[in-house]
């Protein structure tokens, strides 16, 4: 994730996992201005997967899988984000389990982890 100075032209991009790091592996999602600090949005990937994108008050961006692994619904983008012991997390709007936004680790159940994505504003 990258620190993003705010200008209207910046786009949010996700790295899709071919792992080669080629420039075209970055998938453009939307304008940075679409993300309200402190909240998230959902994005649809070409293969049908859904990603939850967040922006915290410092402008940092995060991207995790949108599906709540406990309830099954694709709603994590609608959860509240916060800071727990210095690390960013999102709390599911269904039953409030929290997920670390950097590692995808569930903070309330050590056996559960969700996918994370590399994201940048460019």
């Amino acid at each position, binding site marked *: 994730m990258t620190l993003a100075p705010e200008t209207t032209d910046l786009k949010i991009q996700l790295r899709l996992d071919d792992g080669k790091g080629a420039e075209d592996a970055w998938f453009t999602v939307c304008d940075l201005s*679409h993300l309200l600090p402190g909240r998230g949005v*959902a994005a649809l990937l070409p293969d049908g997967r859904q990603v939850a994108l967040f922006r915290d008050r410092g402008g940092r961006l995060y991207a995790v899988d949108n599906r709540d692994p406990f309830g099954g*619904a694709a709603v994590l983008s*609608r959860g*509240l984000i*916060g*800071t727990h012991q210095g690390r960013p997390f999102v*709390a599911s709007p269904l039953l409030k389990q929290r997920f670390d936004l950097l590692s995808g680790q569930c903070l309330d159940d050590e056996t559960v982890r969700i996918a994370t994505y590399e994201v940048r504003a460019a």
Partner: protein
Amino acid sequence: MSTPPTIVLVGHGMVGQRFLEALAERGLTATHRVVVLCEEPRPAYDRVQLTSYFSGKTPEELSMTDMEFIAAHGIELYVGDPAETVDREARTVTAKSGQVFEYDTLVLATGSYPFVPPVPNKDAEGCFVYRTIEDLLAIEEYARTKATTGAVVGGGLLGLEAAGALKGLGLTSHIVEFAPRLMPVQVDEGGGAALLRTIEDMGLTVHTGVGTQEIVTDASGAVTGMKLSDGSELATDLVVFSAGVRPRDQLARDCGLTVGERGGITVDEQCRTVADPHVFAIGECALASDGRVYGLVAPGYEQAETAAATIAADETDQLSFTGADLSTKLKLLGVDVASFGDAHGTTDDCLDVVYSDSRSGLYKKLVIGRDGTLLGGILVGDADAYGTLRALTGSVPPISPESLVLPAGSGGGAQLGPSALPDEAVVCSCHNVTKGSIRGAVTDHQCATVPEVKKCTKAGTGCGSCVKVLGQLVTAELEASGVVVDKGLCGCFSQTREELYEIVLALRINTFQDLLDRYGREDARGGDGCEICKPAVGSIIASLAPTIGASVYVLDGEQAALQDSNDHFLANLQKNGSYSVVPRIPGGEITPEGLIVIGEIARDFGLYTKITGGQRIDLFGARVEQLPLIWARLVDAGFESGHAYGKALRTVKSCVGQTWCRYGVQDSVRMAIDLELRYRGLRSPHKLKSAVSGCARECAEAQSKDFGVIATSNGWNLYVGGNGGATPRHADLLAQDLSDAELVRLIDRFLMFYIRTADRLERTSTWLERIPGGLDHVRDVVVEDSLGICEELESLMAAHVSTYRDEWAETINNPEKLARFVSFVNAPDTPDPVVGFVPERDQIKPDLPLLSIGMRPLENAEDVLEGSAQR
């Protein structure tokens, strides 16, 4: 042979699982091969909490088996494969699958089976027992599809639990008990009478002193009723037998082990069978050395420990099982019934102290020995003291028995807290944990919360009846050891909600970031806050918005980021990611045109409609992108947000009142509408509900509301602090015979005082119970103005009332906000494919299989995405 010695466990129930844990604790799993034969299709689960399946616990949540534990200890667990024969000569067990296991030690933990009286047609379709998860699944299915009435045979502990469950499934429920009273084993005649009244008040029909003679069936063989011994016939579509259990000792009988006359595998004090030193029996299948078969889990756990210790031949730890406590507390029916110790007073020369109040269904009896020792007791209607009294059994209580049975607040009554208990008192009898060990967990093992203490000592993880006492002990111990119990709102703020409210109001702080950076805990400053403080502070800011100079629109600026997910979308999230829509219908009054508009909208958007418990209409199954379209039409027809999503005023229910009703003495509908329009949109620590009844018959149920109003011939009576929910509370009368203006002024003050001083998510009921001085204090403040703040409270409310605006009307007129109502930021026209529906009773319901698969293949995903990415 070089293979390690083998222990074979037959039966993986609660006691079997505990036995495995006891083996592991003693290191025996490392030195032995351990084989477990489990008959049920799932490994051990919490049978004691079985009924909680009906209140939402899933079978997975009931599980007691940690598969990692099983794997880590190399235990071979064969699920769904019961033992069929035992050859004691060859020391082998043959399982149903045909596998043969040699054993050095065999442990039988086969539990019990439900006893079904041998009445004709007892196996008819619609007859069930109540023992396993599979039984419950079958009952649930049958109740849902084929039954409207259910009868439980047996009015004991389990029978009442089952009857409560049937009622919970929506059936008209009957209990048929052969004895002259309910719970004959636990309670005496007086207790039985109080219990009967309470159970009947809950809408269950009780038939005592009658037996079941025959199950009546129709031509297809399904139950239609039962014939009772008094000659009557009871119509019912479903029968649950709960007439006691019998030890499952068939396997033992077949291989020649000694069993008792009335069943049960005979064992000695070490739980070894008397017939064969290589075989043990534990749990409900065992006939203990004191000649009893125990039907409770705690004695079974003790037997499991005893057997494991004996197998370990651990001299220092030589346990024996010589008998156990039979204390019980009824779960789940919503009735407080408990019995402990010598409840029936069978000890020579003992005396009773009894308090009985049939009007309120209270009955309390303590059995006291000649020397003042507490021997046992029965509590019906109020079993709060159970945890403490049970632990005091066997000692002389520090205060007189009379004051222990009198209700608190009756003058003579005294509350005996757990601090009065000696260290050796057993607080958790399921796991035999003493007060001393609990204190030790806090002082020596640094446990600082109840969950930590539970994990450390196992206390509270059985029937759960000791958890209350546990909490009190933990807090007392922490405070005693000088730990300041952190009363802060969350990890970000060390202040309580009330303190934060005062800060926000006094300093006119109107953003969360400002509050966090100035008043947050040191390491939380500059951060993002958390899911607890953001909505709590968001709510404080919204309650005070006009006064502190914040926007009165909750989605404005930073406030949008603070709102809980439901408030953020101004709708209630459902399990599949769709939303429900609840327009406000003040006082429950609606015109035919209004109904038609709602009906048309529901039809056009394919929504599921339901009349709510709050006298309005809920429309379910709206996709996020449909919300603005639906609301545009609702607003157009004059509807506004019902705040069903917010911690805010919900509904003010009304009865039809004086206008139509021949008993009504005031216009309750008018008043309900006035109150609902006055307080709509008011953000508060928890939701607020109200009702207005036109006379003392109370058809609007005002006394179960946060603020309820009942008409009198002279005006209005105001009740406060009522609550339905899990812990119902009747409201208290705050003031009588008020005029319209007096009523409104008093409610203004009451609500604002509550909003100012309550904790987050604290309803008025719990708030009234918690704050020092309780109702009297609140009356002093809001009626007598003892703090001199009434003028301020009134002006805060006046500011709210005058600045209220409908947030849905505001939203549909704001293009920037509307842009957020899409499933995908990069594909605004694509609906979320996980939100799917299937038909049910002529409407829709969420497609649950879709949720577990997680994704439905998108048709033409590429097409949809093309060109939308740059939006």
